[in-house]
């Protein structure tokens, strides 16, 4: 199945051949952990602009999505945290980019909702804060605000292992938003450290079933940067 699967692509550039300006792009990863390094590098070379990007951090410390942020390819960003990303904070305060800060649990649930066919949901998160401004408030056991699903045209995610059907297995905390984004996007492009034979990942070990994946390729040259290396005392 590996060789004749329509989902298998050669590399990031070929898998992103039809991404267009003005599209909405989801990008997995928490900080730099689990980001789609090959896809992001490919986007720096693709002529697109006015992207709406949905990503928890929009890169960090000059790395990850910051590479396309500094190319001014992003018009609007949805994220939960910009601390540690001075390039984004600066553009935000200068109003060069529109940023919608979304509480992280609401952020992940809005993405999950899109993938699950839920149009909107009520949550207590953000009640009584700036986040609630202009939103419908309804009293349940406590006051809650209405939040809507977040969809995307493309998602770029990375997994440790994947097969030709798109079944994925993530390593440790690299999973984060990636499976949710895969469900929420029309076209999900996955890069993997190991492209394995179908059947190699045991059915009960599959973290994301391949039905949510449209394209997959064997990635290369992973940096897997650590942002803050902290080790046990006496072991630095």
């Amino acid at each position, binding site marked *: 199945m590996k060789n004749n699967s329509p989902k298998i692509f050669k590399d990031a550039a070929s898998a992103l051949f039809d991404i267009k300006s003005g599209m909405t792009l989801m990008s997995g990863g928490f900080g730099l952990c689990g980001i789609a390094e090959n896809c992001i590098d490919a986007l720096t070379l693709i002529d697109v602009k006015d992207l709406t990007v949905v990503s928890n951090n929009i890169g960090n410390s000059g790395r990850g999505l910051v590479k396309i942020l500094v190319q001014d390819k992003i018009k609007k960003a949805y994220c*939960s945290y910009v*601390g540690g990303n001075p390039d984004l904070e600066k553009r935000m305060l200068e109003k060069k980019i529109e940023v919608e800060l979304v509480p992280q649990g609401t952020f992940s649930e809005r993405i999950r909702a899109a993938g699950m066919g839920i149009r909107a949901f009520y949550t207590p998160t953000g009640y009584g804060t700036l986040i609630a401004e202009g939103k419908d408030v309804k009293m349940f056991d406590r006051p809650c605000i209405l939040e809507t699903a977040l969809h995307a045209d493309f998602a770029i995610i990375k997994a440790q292992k994947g097969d030709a059907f798109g079944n994925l297995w993530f390593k440790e905390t690299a999973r984060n938003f990636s499976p949710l984004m895969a469900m929420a996007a029309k076209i999900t492009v996955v890069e993997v450290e190991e492209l394995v034979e179908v059947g190699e990942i045991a059915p009960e070990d599959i*973290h994301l079933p391949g039905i949510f994946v449209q394209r997959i390729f064997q990635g290369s040259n992973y940096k897997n940067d650590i942002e803050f290396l*902290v080790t046990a*005392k006496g072991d630095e």
Partner: protein
Amino acid sequence: MPWTNIEMADEVIKFFKPHSSVNLGIGMPTVIAERMPAELNIMIHSENGVLGVSGRPSANSVSPTLINAGKETVAIGLGASFFDSSLSFGMIRGGHIDYCVLGGMEVDAEKSLANWMVPGKKVTGMGGAMDLVNGSKQVIVMMNHFSKDGVSKLMKKCALPLTGFEVVDLVVTEMGVFKPTGSSFQVIKLAQGVSAQDLKMDEGLLTH
């Protein structure tokens, strides 16, 4: 003598019941993971998708894919599990996490917390804090008592944009332990040698 960060962490730990679950925020609260006594059997949650954080890795067991929400490398203990962000926040919002400990810029007597932006100056974003303060069973703020200008960060009403409205159960600073009551801060405990005057708070804002 005001407490050190380690002494503050130890004060927070005194409030934890054995066999409970705790989420630790970015910055100062991460010290708690390193001070947590093993016999408490507490599961430490980090919202990026891990339950069962256990201190720091040795230099030869560091993994770039095993981090906490502060993007620092961590280790895990027996019984740990990994999951996606939605399940992680389900644990939080669903009321399955017993305590969250997070840093703060301002806390007020009405139990509200501000810790995510200074309008026009600094924006870090709220990360998971808004979900944590609304979902955890108990919300503990661990922070410096005074701003850079020497003003008490425990105040009558927060001036900065709120992270959560009427959500804080306990505040631990280097000066002591305080419980916001709705109209004042009840002094639970002061660090040895610290007096009420040292707190630079209006007398009416404190109850003993």
